């Protein structure tokens, strides 16, 4: 590294703004990242991190402002190859050809050889050279099919470095990794940093940030809160950065305790047969809201799936109104009065090409058609009621769900859970990826269900969402690690990050 290159930032984001419709995703954001830095990008969901990343990787063009790399203007959006040469991105689940070998992945699109015949010998020896040059311990001949995610990430990095890229974005790379793999990744990052590679690190885990980053920028509501380097990055400031700063809540459920000790939903030392969680006990009174939070991989979503019958427990540990529910059977769970909103609505929530009416009534077909034959008119009538209940826009039960907005698709999924008039409602990330208005509407529906005496379990990644509950459980490594009563935002963040 020469002295002069330190003066020119590897990435210079200069007064960038970006607006999507009415949403100001980024406002006048400037960030400067020097060569060889490991720079953390921090902010809550919706703070503008993803938008900024999309600017730096060429997936979006700023409305105003500019991005430069080593003093050079960013390439045009129409030239993805040029972008890839400047910036490489490593995701939670790197996209590699998992059916091919390490060497083929390194040379994908430019296999060495002559006149269409592939020279495996050259490819393997070249790969060995590249891998040893960057001190990556991968076998060029091994298939990636069963390779751990960590190796796929390393491979993505190796490929980028070989192509001449000296800037690597790590977008929540540790979510799917175990402790030892995280340490190996961080060691590698530190080693490559020594060699002059620049990293941008996005993570929700503040301990990781303080472990490997030497500089950080914090975004909030599309603006840059601060950008600092070295000792100026203090842990408490990072915790603050994740707080919303607004104490006023629009929605907050009342604390409810079971008057005579009868719980609507009970889990008695529930243990997942697949090992996702252990000995989770929980009791929710009618009209009570209990929230569950925790980092990715803590098993919190698996608890929700198990209550809904989508996962098997080692025993029938779930009971509704005192009656045990057969584990691993969605239909039995529904009949027992459990309604469920899955976390990934695109994967588990709805059938896109079917109508709103069909999707909403999918779980009550046994009621709608006791002998297997049903009347579409009754189906439509029920759907119309549900459409009105959840205020679907547009209010037409005949439309295919694929044409609705994300928020309204989520309302359809929620309506499906409500169709059976459940005693217990299990919601996993009910407002992920929906706009503010839909979010408010969904919270209002949750509060309405509580007022009607439904017991609600709310499982979420979003700290602000957990805050609508007076009682919050925090899970860690498959167990309930903390139970918070009337917590503040900071209490929750600290508990999730397992501080003090």
């Amino acid at each position, binding site marked *: 590294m020469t002295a002069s290159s330190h003066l020119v930032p590897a990435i210079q984001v200069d007064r960038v703004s970006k607006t999507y419709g009415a949403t100001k995703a980024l406002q006048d954001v400037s960030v400067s990242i020097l060569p060889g830095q490991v720079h953390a990008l921090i902010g809550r969901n919706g703070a503008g991190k993803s938008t900024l990343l999309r600017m730096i990787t060429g997936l979006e063009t700023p409305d105003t402002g500019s991005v430069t790399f080593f003093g050079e203007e960013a390439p045009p959006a129409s030239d993805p190859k040029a972008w890839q040469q400047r910036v490489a991105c490593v995701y939670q689940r790197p996209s590699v050809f998992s059916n091919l070998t390490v060497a083929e992945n390194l040379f994908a699109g430019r296999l060495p050889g002559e006149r269409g015949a592939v020279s495996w010998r050259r490819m393997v020896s070249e790969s060995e050279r590249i891998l040893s040059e960057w001190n990556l311990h991968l076998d060029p001949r091994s298939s990636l099919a069963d390779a751990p995610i960590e190796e796929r990430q390393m491979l993505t990095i190796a490929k980028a470095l070989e192509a001449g890229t000296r800037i690597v974005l790590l977008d929540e790379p540790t979510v799917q990794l175990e402790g030892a793999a995280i340490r190996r990744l961080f060691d590698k990052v530190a080693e490559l940093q020594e060699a002059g590679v620049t990293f941008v690190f996005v993570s929700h885990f503040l301990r990781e940030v303080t472990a490997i980053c030497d500089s950080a920028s914090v975004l909030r509501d599309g603006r840059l809160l601060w950008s600092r380097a070295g000792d100026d990055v203090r842990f408490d400031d990072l915790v603050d950065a994740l707080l919303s700063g607004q104490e006023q809540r629009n929605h907050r459920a009342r604390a409810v305790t079971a008057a005579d000790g009868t719980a609507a939903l009970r889990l008695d030392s529930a243990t997942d047969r697949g090992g996702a969680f252990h000995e989770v006990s929980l009791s929710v009174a009618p009209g009570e809201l209990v929230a569950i939070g925790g980092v990715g991989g803590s098993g919190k979503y698996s608890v929700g799936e198990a209550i809904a019958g*989508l996962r098997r427990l080692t025993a029938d540990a779930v009971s509704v109104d005192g009656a045990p529910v057969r584990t691993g059977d969605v239909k039995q769970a529904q009949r027992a009065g459990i309604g469920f909103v899955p976390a990934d609505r695109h994967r588990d929530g709805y059938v896109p090409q079917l109508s709103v009416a069909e999707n909403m009534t999918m779980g009550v077909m046994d009621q709608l058609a006791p002998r297997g034959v049903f009347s579409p008119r009754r189906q439509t009538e029920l759907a119309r009621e549900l459409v009105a209940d959840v205020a679907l826009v547009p209010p037409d039960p005949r439309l295919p769900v694929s044409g609705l907005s994300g928020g309204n698709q989520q309302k359809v999924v929620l309506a499906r859970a409500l169709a059976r008039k459940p005693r217990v409602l299990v919601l996993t990330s009910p407002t992920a990826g929906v706009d503010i208005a839909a979010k408010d509407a969904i919270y209002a529906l949750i509060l309405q269900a509580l007022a009607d005496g439904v017991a609600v379990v709310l499982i979420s990644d979003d700290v602000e969402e957990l805050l609508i509950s007076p009682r919050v459980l925090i899970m860690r490594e498959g167990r309930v690690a903390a139970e918070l009563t009337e917590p503040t935002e900071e209490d929750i963040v600290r508990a999730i990050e397992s501080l003090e």
Partner: protein
Amino acid sequence: MNNVRTTAVRVPSTTGSPVLRSVVRNLRELSVLPGLLVVVVIGVIVSPAFLSAANLTLILRQSAELGIVVIGLTFILLTGKLDISLESTVGLAPMVAAWLMVPAAVGGLGVEISPFLAIAITLAIGALIGFVNGLLVVKVGLDPFIVTLAMLILLRGLILGISSGKTLAGLPEAFRYIGSARWAGIPAAIWVTGVLFVIAGLVLRYTSWGRALYAIGGNAEAARAAGIRVDAVLIVAFIVASTLASFAGLMLSGRLASVTSGMGENLIFSALAAAVIGGVQLTGGQGRILGALLGVLLLGTLTNVLTLAGVPTFWINAVYGAVILLALLVGRWGGTKPIR
């Protein structure tokens, strides 16, 4: 959805006359009609006999077995699965029944069971094959194409083993009845096939099992999370399809008055072509029985016209294949946009 025409097809218009709305809703199925019309016009041109009642009856009669197999295949395709062994079920089920029925002197086993028992056995064999296919695909998790390909070869081998490649003739009247009788001057097979199509349409529209097929084909995970018993619905679909195929085999042996070792051969290709031309998506979740029926009629009419036109026997398959490709192109142009 960034395509206006696709939108028109997939979103039922909320305005306009009921007739127009119905036309729009069925656009994908109706896109077979121009192709069918062209084939009919060619038929009228090549032979004055084409439009005769006898010839039209012949077309329907010869399409009946294909139609019944297509009904079953459509159920399975709607879930996003596949069963290519249906064609050998068409052959094996009546073969086993005939083998148990006819005297040892003409190639039977010698037990000479009653024709009514034989009919029951035909259908039971169909159900059993479907059950096994269903178990292997749903419970064991094997790929439906490979499972049913292996099953197709296995069943075809059983047919040859049982019959030693010979044709079993001399079937009792009762066994041949459904494939040879006439009701009100029209072959019973046509009536039965028509009724089965109506029933299939009603089942797909008005029963929770029928709607579950669409839900599973559209998003099996969501169907499971919604409380649909996905495995049971799928296994029943395989059983129903195979049972229908064995019934088609019964009708076919009645028409031929014998059971041949080649019965049903290559039928699955026509069945797949008919279903897909009719707008049933191989990826599951989309398609209607009306479209499948029109696909069957198109292929049946085409075969008839090719014969009437005196296309040399050795060339018929080439022309047949070319017309299927053409029909698929017309169908794509007419509204079956690729779905992403």
